């Protein structure tokens, strides 16, 4: 068994540097690497390029990194819900590249799986297709999209073992498994870290080979973005 466990979030982030490109798992505030984001927000590093589906809210999730002015460029798909992000965007402090969500997911997966490029129909006829190469297959037009290239993937799982195997929970899975192994270094924080052999090998969502470092996260807030109930 190849041992991936580290004790602290600082150990987990060793080697990270200003100016790097980071992938961050999560959809809105669901399934985000809370401990890693907090540590980055408090670190001295900055000028990150971030790849993530969304931008969090003002005081949580990726919002903490925008609040701490750590991000200079953002690849995302839906960037509403965060006023500080909007302010920085309007003032020109940050640059944003918007990517259709399915394309974003597949660009992460392509990086993980060693596929340099693929074709997708999303964005044909729109400004997303500008400067993209187009090609017809079976009478339909597709865009050529390439794999992301990044330095660190920061993901959050429900359970993990010391071999780096991960199991996600519910819709907190989202982009997390796709970012594992899609960067030079992948760091996973988990709610519950168990010894190797305790997870059923048949139920593992992400094999440990895609994870370089794993640690037990602390004090999960798991904030709900839109609390909706049957009888509000």
């Amino acid at each position: 068994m190849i041992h991936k466990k580290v004790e602290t979030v600082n150990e987990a982030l060793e080697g990270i540097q200003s100016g790097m490109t980071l992938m961050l798992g999560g959809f809105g505030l669901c399934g985000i690497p809370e401990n890693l984001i907090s540590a980055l927000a408090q670190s001295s590093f900055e000028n990150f390029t971030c790849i993530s589906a969304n931008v969090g809210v003002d005081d949580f999730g990726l919002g903490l990194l925008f609040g701490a002015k750590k991000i200079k460029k953002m690849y995302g798909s839906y960037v509403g819900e965060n006023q500080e992000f909007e302010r920085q965007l309007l003032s020109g402090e940050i640059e944003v590249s918007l990517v259709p969500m399915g394309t974003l997911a597949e660009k992460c997966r392509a990086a993980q799986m060693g596929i340099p490029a693929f074709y997708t129909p999303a964005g044909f006829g729109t400004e997303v297709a500008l400067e993209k190469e187009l090609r017809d297959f079976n009478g339909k037009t597709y865009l050529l999209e390439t794999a992301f290239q990044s330095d660190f993937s920061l993901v959050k799982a429900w359970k993990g073992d010391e071999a780096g195997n991960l199991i996600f929970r519910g819709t907190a899975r989202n982009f997390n498994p796709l970012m594992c192994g899609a960067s030079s270094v992948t760091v996973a924080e988990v709610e519950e870290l168990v010894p190797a052999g305790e997870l059923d090998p048949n139920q593992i969502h992400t094999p440990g080979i895609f994870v370089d470092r794993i640690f037990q996260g602390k004090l999960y807030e798991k904030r709900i973005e839109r609390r909706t109930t049957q009888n509000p």
Partner: protein
Amino acid sequence: MPLTKNQIAQRIAQELQSGFYVNLGIGIPTLVANHVPKEMAVEFQSENGILGVGPFPEAGKEDPDLVNAGKQTITPLPGSSYFDSAVSFGMIRGKHIDLTVLGAMEVSETGDIANWKVPGKLVKGMGGAMDLVASSENIIVAMIHTDSKGASKLLKKCTLPLTGVRCVKRIVTHLAVLDVVEGGFLLKERAPGVSVDEIQLATEGRLVVPKFVPEMIF
């Protein structure tokens, strides 16, 4: 009487068929789920990674790990499954979703749709909308026929940045049901008590009017 938003959703629910996997966008489309006949087997997909979306949870039973694409807390139904975003959009891209219902700011008479960006206003992003409209073969747009200033949203040509081209099949507005056909918007049904002239007046794009246009039946 023009339809309420809820009635638009109710009319769209009539398009559902047993066995349909359905993706509902945010806004009026979300309301469609409230009008599924009990005996009909329909499953809702939410593109953040769940198939078999159920009702909102009871108060106190919200689970932060269970949300829909609108980030609302939800519950799963029996037979549901969770998956990653690549699989989720694979379902969409691979044409496994039978019906997509979306809101729109503009639709053109050739089926182009604009629903993600207004120049000069802050952009929130396209989310999954471009994947959905580029992939689905059965797209219904749910919207109010005109904007807040009374201007038509059914146009010859969209003026806003596009989300997708030649993709919308059917439009249900507060005034009418229209199909996008060769030649323009084919008027299929009128809202109860709404005249063809009223619809014509509210439609900038070319309206194809058959001899008889029935009223919607609820």
